[in-house]
């Protein structure tokens, strides 16, 4: 079993809800990312998704679009994202997943990318615009290098496809809470509930982590109660985007602490 799957299964056995954070690499500044991730790893975070910036992020709402644009302006590339991952891995053992769109990965070389991830000690990858149908090469490489290949499932995914995704996904299954792009919105939990009940019925192998639009302790508590954990991205990017210099880490921790506490009430 891969390290990520192992870690998440352990959490499940202990009854602890996973808290996963998405951080755009190089946002708000190139120097901010590594210290931020290292500090977060000491603050009750179970998983970090390091976002590879891309010029045309079609699954993302305005906040993550903006964070990607800024990161690209800061000179970020996939190469530099891998260097950050390497630095993070030297400094802490938090489970680490790289998340990014297909094109920079293809341009870098899929094979080179996955083997580099393995060398560094990255635990998994999420490529939101590579659905099951286009994933043969990624799946083969993920098995070869023992790196999790996490698939996404959405409210529009039919039952039989949920079962298929569960068969192919490794590490966890990323449940997209709502029909839409990333970013905070009202009434999230109610919309997510129906889908998550259905996903629970269909998905037997993988832990279910839920992302897109989760922004408050209340969102986290409600979504966490019907899943194995939550993923927070846009809301965190918003918090650190407004911070200057040293306040990035401070603001991030202040933001996630009540969310961690809300999840812990579910244990």
């Amino acid at each position, binding site marked *: 079993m891969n390290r990520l799957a192992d870690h998440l299964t352990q959490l499940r056995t202990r009854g602890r809800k996973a808290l996963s954070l998405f951080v755009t690499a190089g946002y708000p500044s190139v120097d901010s990312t590594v210290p931020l991730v290292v500090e977060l790893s000491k603050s009750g975070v179970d998983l970090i998704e390091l976002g590879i910036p*891309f*010029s*045309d*992020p*079609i*699954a*993302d*709402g305005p906040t993550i*679009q903006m964070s990607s*644009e800024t990161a*690209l302006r800061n000179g970020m*590339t*996939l*190469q530099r994202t891998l260097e950050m991952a390497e630095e993070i891995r030297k400094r802490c053992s938090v489970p680490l997943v790289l998340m990014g*769109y*297909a*094109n*920079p*990965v*293809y*341009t*870098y070389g899929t094979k080179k990318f996955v083997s580099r991830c393995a060398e560094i000690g990255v635990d998994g990858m999420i490529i*939101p*615009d*590579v*659905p099951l*149908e*286009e994933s043969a090469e990624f799946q083969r490489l993920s098995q070869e290098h023992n790196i999790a290949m996490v*698939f*996404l*499932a*959405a*409210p*529009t*995914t*039919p039952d039989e*496809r949920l079962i298929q*995704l569960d068969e192919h996904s490794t590490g966890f299954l990323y449940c*997209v809470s709502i*029909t*839409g*792009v990333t970013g905070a919105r009202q009434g999230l939990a109610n919309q997510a509930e129906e889908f998550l009940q259905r996903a629970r019925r269909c998905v037997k192998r993988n832990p279910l982590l839920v992302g897109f639009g989760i922004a408050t302790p209340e969102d986290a508590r409600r979504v966490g109660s019907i899943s194995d954990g939550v993923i927070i991205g846009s809301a965190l990017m918003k918090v650190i985007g407004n911070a200057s210099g040293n306040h990035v880490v401070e603001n991030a921790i202040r933001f996630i602490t009540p969310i961690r506490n809300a999840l812990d009430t579910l244990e």
Partner: protein
Amino acid sequence: MNQIIETLPDKTGHFGKFGGRFVPETLISALHDLECAYFSIKGDAAFQAEFKSLLQDYVGRPTPLYFAKQLTARYEKARIYLKREDLCHTGAHKINNTIGQILLAKYLGKTRIIAETGAGQHGVATATVSAMMGLQCAVYMGTEDMARQEINVTRMRLLGAEVIPVTSGTRTLKDATNDALRDWVATVRDTFYVIGSVVGPHPYPMIVRDFQSVIGRETKQQILEKEKHLPSHLIACVGGGSNSLGLFYDFLSDDVRMIGVEAAGFGVASGKHAATLTAGTPGILHGSYSYVLQDAAGQILPAHSISAGLDYPGVGPEHSYLKDIGRVKYVSVTDEEALEATFRLTSCEGILPALESSHALAYLEYLMPQTSPNDTVVVNLSGRGEKDLPTIIQAWTKRGQKELR
């Protein structure tokens, strides 16, 4: 080999290694539904009859194949014909596809239509057909394009469509497509996304090609009537590539040379161009694997063309395939050359072409000297130039309104 080209894409939506379906999971089931619906209407007599009748009575098809006598006389080489897509209702070939897709939307029971637009022609065509069929319509358009295609913006609003300004990225067609996709990710249950070119995830490149292939079918019939033989050359401009593929498709197995003309902007060497097949590399943009303009790290580069409809850093996957197997030759001409071709056609044939179509016309300067009087060249005049008048007039004034020839 040519025998099998027409059967593509394969079952998984690929043209050789190109194409596919690189989209977020949320859209996958909608694309499955679309594909199923499309295959069922493809063989459905009632659907095809309705489509055909609208093309005839609403669009004005068949469009003429006009023998350009004066233009032919200018070169004293091959006989030049113009396929007059500029005479379609709303002024360009775009509406052929729009009618097909909106009929498909009704078949699927969708109540809201969205589209992206660059030059505004696809947006106008979509707004027009939505108005005619009583459907709600929203069009995404980059603010850069809104500024240079003001008339089309107002026209879409008159037609009852909401024009949604796109301010992200390069503020042109690429970003309008991103935002239309994001809208669709959120509204996929009741919304149909009418893609305007042979781009996007499978099955769009196939559907758009099929709906546009009426251009080539008519051309074949018309040229056989007029000349009693097939043309030697077909020329069309390529942005995403719908008018060119529409013209080429029916001739793919024939002994006909085909040339796709891309926008070289300020020149390919300047880096400010939209010549994706000429100067790009394979990559993934807007849901398919195809040639794209990108930097060494896989970030999509901004395109440039004087023509908003060609100002796009991607191209349809079938074109990428046709390039790689050598079936179609892809070339490029600059903004300047396209403008000269605009002036030339206007003054010698009394036809004002769209700046997009002028790129195809401009290539005649290179092609004609290599042809003989026994050859026949068909140029797809994909749209009319009224929408470009501000740009054309500005350029004309700048060059001192010299005598044209």
